[in-house]
Structure formats: C-alpha cells, structure tokens
C-alpha cells in the first residue's frame, strides 16, 4: 500500500488556533510555518488520541512529537516526569536532546529535558530517579532497567506522554517486544498516558498502529502522514566497463562512482556488507587523486572511530562516507546531495530509507544512483527502480513476541514489586506482540523464571521467585535482582575479538569465526587498511600494517540480507518480458538473448531447472529466486535426497537467485527430486541439528536468563562462568524437547525463517510445473552461480565433511611436487 492510499487524517485546524502565541511567534520568528503533521499531532494530543506519524527521515517529525508536550508543560506546568522519549540509538537520543534544547531555550520554556543511557554517570542516574526532568530521553534497555526498580510506580505516576522514535526499526524485533511489554507496565502505572509513534514509511501501517496501541487495536491510534514527500530520482549507473558475471564488489564501476562523488557536494555510499565497505573504501582511495575527504563507517569499527566520522559528516567536513546499514538509522544530515547504493539493494523499503538520507532540504528531490555488481544485480536494480517509482514496499509485518523476552520481563517485574500471575497476564496481553499469548504459554514462562520449568526433575531447593501466601510472586533475593539488572536487554552480541595494531590502536571488532580462520602471515583488509595477522592474544587479534593490493583472506563479511520476495517477483517479471529488455544495458540484454537461444528463460509460474555435464561432474541449476537463505536450506535438502538416490552429490552453492548442485551421476527425474514432501521428510531432522537453531537457542537462553551474558574482559579473568550453550541445547533437546525455551527457539527460528515458508511456497508452485532442460554444456544464465563455487562459506552442519576437506588439503600440500 502506498502512503497516498493510507488512511490519512488531515487537520484543517488553523495554526493560530492550535498554537499558543509563544509557539506561533517562535515559528514565525524563524521564518517557518508549522507543518501540517505537526499541527495534526497537537490536535490529536488535545483530543487525547494516540498517534502514529509516518514520514520520511528529516521531515521534522521528531520535533512534532515533542510539540504537544512542550505546549502542555509550558501552559499547565508539570510536576516531575511528563514525557518519555525512546530511541533505538543512544546517539539519536543525544542528538534529539540537543535539537530539543533549541526551542526550549529560544522560547524560554520552563521545561527540563535530560538523556539517560548506559553512558549517564551513576550519580546523575540516581538523581534522575529522585528528581526526574520533565522530559527524559532514553533507550528501550534503560527503560526496562528503570521499570525494574521498586520506585518505578512513583517515578512514572505523572507520565502524560511517550514518544517512540523510529518504531519501524523496533516493531517485530526482540527490542520491540521488550519495549511493547514496558509500555504495558507504563500504562498500568499511568493510565492516561498518550503514545506518539514516529516511523519511516512502511508497507504495513495498520500493523504498526496496532503495535503502538494500548489495546493492540489499530483503530485507537490516529495515522498522520507527515513530510510532504518529494519524488526521488533513482537511476542506475550506466557503466562503460565490461559488466561482471559474478562477484559483489563492483570494482569495475568504482572509477565512475568516484566521478559522481567528485561532481556532488556530499555523497553517502551505501553497501550491503562490511567486506564490501572495506573494499569499496580501499578502491576509492586508490582512485582519489584529488585527495577528497572520504571516510568509512561500519558496525565493526571501534565506536570512537564511528563517532569521529559522524561528527565530521555533521560538520560538513566530508565529501563522502562509505557505510553499511550502520548509517540506515540515526541523525539527519541535511547536506547529503547524493546517495549511491553499491551492489543490489535486496529490498525496496530499505532502499527507500537509504535514498531518503539525501536531499533533506525540502522540495529538493532525493537523488540516488544504483551500482549493480554483476548481471543478475542489473535486473534487481532495474526491478527496485520500478518499485520505488510505483511506490510499492516490501517487508513483513511484526510477528508475535518471543517467550524469552517475556521471561526477562516477568523477572524484571518481580524485581520491581510482587506480581500476581492473573494481573500480569492481563497486562502483558495488552501489547500487540503478546495479544494472542495463551495462558498456558504464559504460565510456562513464569514457571521457567521461577524454577527452570523442567518437567522431569524439579529444582525444588533453588528458585528465583518466592510465592507469597496471597498468590503474588517476588524475586527471592537481592542477588537475583542484581543478576537480572546485569543481564537486561535483548541484544546478544556474537562473540567478537578486538582487532589491534601490534603496539598500536584498536581498530574495531570481528566475529570469532573470522578471527579463528586466520593463520599467521595471512593478510586481510580491515578498517580500510591492509593488515597482516600476527596472532590472537587475550581475546585480541594482533596485526601489523602490510603492503600489497590483494588480501589473501576475503574481508570480513558481516550482515548479508537476502533478497525480498517482492523484489524477486519483479526480477522474474522482467526476465519473462523481453519487450522490456530495452531498459537494460546492452551487455545484459545480449546475455539474456543468448540464454533464450541456448536454453530458455525462467517464467513466472514455472521452475526452470537446467542440467549439464561439466568436467567429470553433473550439474543441476534451479532458478528459484527465493533468496540465499532459502536456497541454502534447499541445497542441503536436495543433496540429502540425492545421496539416498545414489547420485553421489558432491556439493552445492546458493545465490539469491539460483541454487546449483553437482554430483557424480546425473539427475534423472527432477520432478520427483523437487517433490513437496521434501520439507516434511528431512527438514525437521535437519533443523534440529542445524547451527542456525543452536545460534537461536543461545540468544534465547541469554535473553530468558538461563545463562548469563558474557562481558568482554570478564571472560579472561574467569569472574564469570560461561557455558557452551550448544551442550545445553543438545541435552535439553534429547530429554525435554517441549521445554518452553525450545519452543521459544523454534518459534524464533520460524519467524527469522520466513525462508522456509518461501521454500514451501516455491515447491508447491513447482508441482507439475518444472521445466527441465538437459543441456550439453553450461548455459549463460548458469555461469554466475558456477563462478561462486568455492567462494562460499559453509555453515556448521557438515563438521565431518569440512574436517575431511581440511585433511585433504593437507595431503595435497604434502604431496605437491612443485617447488
């Protein structure tokens, strides 16, 4: 649904009627006229309505969120805390605070505003609980912590308004689940409290309204469309170079990207992975003859480094920043003239948000250029441009909330005050993510919090809750309260190691698996520099700066998103309509033409499968277009089947578009191979064993409070006992497969794995609609995936196979006669 179609509640009220003189004067004094959505929010507040403002970044919607509160406080005065502002990012809370101080100071309003985050000093936090400001700006985690104190009721009793920023980024995540639960407690303490949500454009505004509502009902929240949206000019880079067959780095196009940067004032260069960020940044510096100030920003860099880049950007000292999704959210930079997306965008909503980071001076259209890295990405970029033009978005509406988050919330509530299960159940089910929570599941969660909730052997002596005679529960000891507060939050970081220059600075962090794959002398790119690996000491990767151009180890991947269904459908539609190919670059059109001549093109309702011999192997390539994750699962299921059929499968590789499997013997009956029952047969067995489920379980176990968090630095000193959650998972799965934490794990896996649903949908469609082409050699469309072979990282299931392979490499090394 586009914004234009959405139910927009317009206000015709005149600014003069809604704004007190002091405010009207302030707007006028600045030469501004209040935006319609700002006035609409004031009107909603006066009517006592909850409201959701949907506007592109930089539409002045954050100020709009505070406007009613500023008016209320300055007109009627406020005792203590009046308005709570929640942001997903600490830095954003700080920035919004700074912006809020301007109108407060200029209008001399009797309003106090302060931030509270993990960085706030202890004495200030203590004081804030005793004498709170009128407006407190904080994060979901800090709010949870505040609500776990016995004085929470006193602190929030007079709360009139909650402003929730960037809620499109929170709803549907575990942080969002936690925030939604906290809101139900705030509502219980301060029933008259109004909610204001601020969101970027989403495909599911009604689900977001329900998420924001106090009764999980979309109808009780007004929808306000903000920020006169300006059309974006999105184009594709028409490269002069040969368009690559595969790869994701778009190195071929970077000289032209550099030209664009030179021509524009300030450019944001978005990429999809940290590896792309490193390589694109490195290449741009090679090309940077004019010595333009170009910086790098991604989530693995040291925080100080990122802050420095953000500050330089805000001050207008940079010409370009190469960034990953680490800059998708956050502070507005009005001065960005151009957004360049290197690599296919993977999803339309994200592209729209990224494009929206440019041209914030209203009535200047946003300008963006897409830079495809290979031929398939050309199709994807073309599809994305169509989608932006037609205003269609993708993304899934928020799913039901997690049991693990609920467990943490139950414990937090037990720390604040004794709770009665009946009352707490009623309270939490007011949150949209838990509106459908069954009483049995709730009771199981409480039992888990209390004594672990194990069916076969109860921990009678060791409990975390004490049951009072009137049926209320409270935390059994101060030690349990401390434990909860130490472990609050739903972000579970992967185990990371710092990257440090030997006798030099820390550059950032990499995930453990990457660090452990390095061998002495290996070179890799990190933080825009070529480094040589020296060793790992005390949880730190030590490296020295190295020369040379080509790293031996591909850079750190990090954060790869699969293609959305919406975009995949558009790509398929382009392929199926040769009449539209004139919109594609010549090289790509020729590639498709030869494919049509040599084999055929995938059609929307048919699954094209090609098979051909190559070397001594037989290849099968299926054009499923269901995204990389779904294809990996499919590859695993197909090879299992082929193994049973005696075809001796040897491996598979998946991209966002296709899956290729190779075997010793050719596949005969493709239709049977792709039978729908594949999912029933093997999927469950595989799922339970998969590293994906183990990772999910680890997160669930930490969030639910089964095992404690690891804090960097404490691991080494042994202050904290850490557990290998895989061992716990294996044991629990065998002896109590229906335990609440395993149910939570499977639910999460299913919600993260819409990929399985995509797979099921694809197999259903493919029933009797498989077009099998036997070819004598590889087809043009199959070339890109074959080029990916060997570059793919394999997931943890195939331990024995990988170990065999490692041993084989050793043999090859040992028997190699070359000097």
């Amino acid at each position: 649904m586009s914004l234009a179609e959405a139910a927009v509640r317009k206000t015709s009220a005149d600014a003069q009627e809604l704004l007190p003189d002091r405010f009207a004067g302030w707007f006028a004094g600045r030469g501004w006229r209040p935006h319609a959505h700002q006035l609409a929010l004031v009107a909603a507040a006066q009517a006592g309505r909850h409201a959701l403002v949907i506007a592109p970044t930089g539409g002045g919607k954050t100020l709009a969120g505070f406007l009613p509160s500023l008016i209320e406080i300055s007109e009627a005065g406020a005792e203590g805390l009046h308005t709570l502002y929640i942001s997903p990012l600490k830095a954003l809370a700080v920035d919004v605070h700074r912006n809020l101080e301007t109108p407060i100071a200029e209008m001399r309003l009797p309003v106090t505003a302060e931030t509270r985050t993990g960085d706030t000093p202890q004495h200030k936090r203590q004081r804030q609980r005793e004498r709170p400001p009128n407006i407190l700006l904080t994060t979901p985690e800090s709010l949870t912590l505040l609500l776990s104190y016995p004085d929470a009721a006193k602190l929030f009793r007079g709360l009139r308004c909650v402003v929730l920023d960037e809620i499109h980024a929170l709803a549907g995540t575990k942080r969002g689940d936690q925030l939604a639960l906290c809101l139900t407690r705030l509502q219980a303490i301060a029933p008259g409290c109004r909610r204001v949500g601020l969101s970027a454009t989403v495909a599911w505004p009604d689900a977001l309204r329900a998420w924001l509502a106090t009764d999980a009902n979309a109808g009780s929240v007004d929808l306000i469309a903000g920020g006169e949206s300006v059309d974006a000019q999105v184009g594709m880079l028409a490269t002069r170079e040969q368009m690559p067959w595969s790869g994701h780095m778009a190195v071929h196009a970077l000289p032209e990207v550099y030209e664009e940067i030179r021509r524009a004032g300030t450019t944001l260069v978005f990429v999809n992975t940290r590896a792309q960020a490193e390589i694109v940044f490195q290449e741009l510096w090679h090309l940077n003859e004019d010595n333009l100030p170009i910086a790098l920003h991604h989530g693995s860099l040291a925080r100080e480094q990122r802050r420095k880049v953000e500050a330089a950007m805000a001050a207008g000292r940079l010409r370009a920043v190469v960034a990953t999704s680490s800059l998708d959210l956050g502070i507005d930079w009005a001065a960005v003239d151009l957004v360049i997306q290197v690599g296919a965008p993977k999803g339309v909503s994200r592209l729209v948000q990224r494009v929206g980071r440019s041209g914030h001076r209203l009535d200047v259209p946003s300008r963006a250029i897409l830079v495809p890295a290979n031929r398939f990405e050309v199709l994807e970029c073309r599809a994305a441009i169509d989608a932006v033009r037609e205003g269609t978005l993708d993304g899934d509406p928020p799913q039901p909330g997690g049991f693990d988050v609920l467990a943490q919330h139950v414990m937090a509530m037990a720390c604040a005050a004794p709770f009665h299960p009946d009352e707490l159940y009623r309270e939490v089910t007011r949150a949209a993510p838990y509106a459908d929570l069954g009483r049995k599941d709730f009771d199981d969660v409480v039992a888990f919090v209390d004594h672990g909730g194990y069916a076969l052997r109860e921990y009678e002596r060791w409990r975390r809750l004490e049951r009072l005679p009137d049926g209320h529960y409270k935390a059994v000891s101060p030690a349990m309260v401390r434990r909860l507060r130490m472990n609050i939050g739903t972000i579970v970081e992967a185990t990371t190691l710092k990257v440090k220059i030997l006798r030099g600075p820390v550059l950032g962090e990499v995930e453990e698996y990457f660090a452990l794959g390095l061998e002495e002398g290996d070179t890799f790119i990190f933080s825009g520099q070529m480094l040589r690996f020296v060793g790992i000491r005390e949880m730190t990767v030590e490296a020295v700066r190295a020369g040379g151009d080509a790293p031996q180890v591909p850079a750190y991947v990090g954060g790869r998103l699969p293609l959305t269904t919406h975009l995949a459908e558009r790509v398929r539609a382009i392929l199926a309509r040769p009449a539209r190919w004139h919109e594609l670059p010549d090289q790509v059109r020729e590639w498709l033409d030869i494919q049509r001549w040599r084999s055929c093109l995938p059609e929307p309702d048919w699954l094209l499968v090609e098979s051909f011999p190559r070397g001594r192997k037989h290849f099968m390539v299926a054009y499923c277009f269901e995204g990389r994750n779904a294809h990996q699962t499919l590859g695993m299921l197909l090879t299992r089947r082929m193994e049973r059929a005696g075809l001796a499968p040897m491996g598979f590789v998946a991209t966002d578009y296709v899956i290729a499997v190779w075997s010793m013997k050719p596949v005969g009956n493709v239709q049977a191979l792709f039978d729908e029952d594949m999912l029933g047969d093997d999927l469950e067995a595989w799922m339970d064993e998969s590293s994906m489920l183990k990772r999910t379980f680890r997160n669930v176990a930490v969030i639910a409070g089964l095992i404690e968090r690891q804090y960097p630095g404490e691991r080494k000193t042994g202050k904290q006992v850490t557990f290998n959650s895989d061992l716990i998972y294996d044991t629990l799965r065998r002896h109590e497969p229906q335990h609440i934490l395993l149910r939570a794990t499977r639910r999460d896996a299913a919600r993260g794995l819409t990929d399985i649903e995509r797979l099921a949908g694809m197999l259903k469609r493919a029933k009797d609609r498989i077009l099998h082409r036997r070819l004598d050699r590889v087809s043009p469309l199959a070339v890109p995936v074959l080029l990916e072979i060997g570059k793919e990282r394999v997931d943890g299931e195939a331990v024995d196979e990988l170990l065999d392979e490692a041993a084989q490499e050793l043999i090859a090394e040992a028997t190699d006669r070359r000097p």
Partner: protein
Amino acid sequence: MTAAAFDFHGAGLLADASGALYWPAKETLAVADLHLEKGSAFAANGTLLPPYDSRETLRRLQAVLRRHRPRRVICLGDSFHDTDAAGRLPAEDAATLCRLTKAHEWIWITGNHDPDAPADLGGIAAREFRADRLVFRHEAAAHAAGEVSGHFHPKASVPARGRAVGGRCFVTDGDRLILPAFGAYAGGLDVRDPAIEELLGSEYTVLILGRARVHAFRRSRMLRVEAPRLL
C-alpha cells in the same frame, strides 16, 4: 560412530568418536571428566540449567559400552562435579550407574573435583592405575611416559574454507595422551593454551571428534590459541 586406531607407547588404542578411549588387548575402556551433576551444582547460584546432564552423560556412556563391550572401565577423575554431586544424583541415574559398576571392573580415578570415590555406587577408587607400560591418572604428572590422563578438557580447531572447524579432541605427543571431557556439560580448553601445550613435546597430534568420525591433525596444521572459553 567410528573410532580411529593409533599406537601409543606400544599399545594399540582406539579413539572413539564419543570421546572414550578403548584398549582392545586389555578390554579396557577409559573416559575422562564425566562431571556428573554439574547442572545442579549451578542451580544454587540461580543458573537453572536443564537438570539432565547426568542422564545424558550416562546415556552416552552406555552407548559406547555397548559398542566395545569392555571388561574394565576406568573413569579418569572429575567423574563427579563436586563432593556432594553423588548425593544429588537422581535415583534413576544412580541406579543406572550402579548397574554399570556392577557389570564391569570399575575404577574411579580420583580427581580435583572428586578427591574421594563415591560411597555406595560401586567400583573401586585409586589415585592411578597401571597396565603394561601405560599409567592412567587424572592430571598429567611431570616427566611421564605412557601416561593416559584427563583434567584439561582439550579441544582443537583447524581452518577449513576460511573459518575454524573443530571440537573436543584427544591430544598426544607419543609420551602422553590426554582425553577429551566426556561429560554432557563439560566444555573445552584449546590445546594451544599454554596450560596444555607446556605439557607436550614440540610436535603432537590431535584427534578431533567430528559428528561421527575422528580426524587427525598435526600441530603445525592447527590454529592459534583460542582464549579459554568454556568450563
């Protein structure tokens, strides 16, 4: 599950993929660091781990006993997570264990977690056990030869396709052999950690336990030290 055969100090041994060591000539099976009732030991501090670790450890032990049918079983110490652990064993698990100790010649080597052998679970206690040229003890001693021990919970990783793959392992330099921990909740320490590496000669072999097979690697093939991570 399969096992890897190797010679150690004149004895033909099998490294079982479960982590147990079998010596066919002597019909002797050894397992290290069962850490029974580790789960309940943590419950007292509010870490309510699933209380099924003893059951799981015994289940795996029964499976390997069925596979090799030994006459004698040697538990290389730290069989119980703490001195009260035997008393906390659920009745069903205690009964299973009694059946096993009765059916075999059962030797409890004492360890730092369990300095005394359990009173009423059968088996006999010893600080060490000798057979032919091999000696079995809990923790490696100075200047040992032909020594089979546990205590360190060794694990190892090797690079494969740009990442680390590995798991629990046996490690031997020809004079010593250290077994992986067998207990369901017993974690591991990387063999490259000085605590283990200082005991070994300059070259050694690890036998990494895969899912169903055992894989041998020389020291030079392995990865740098991973920080001690898991207990």
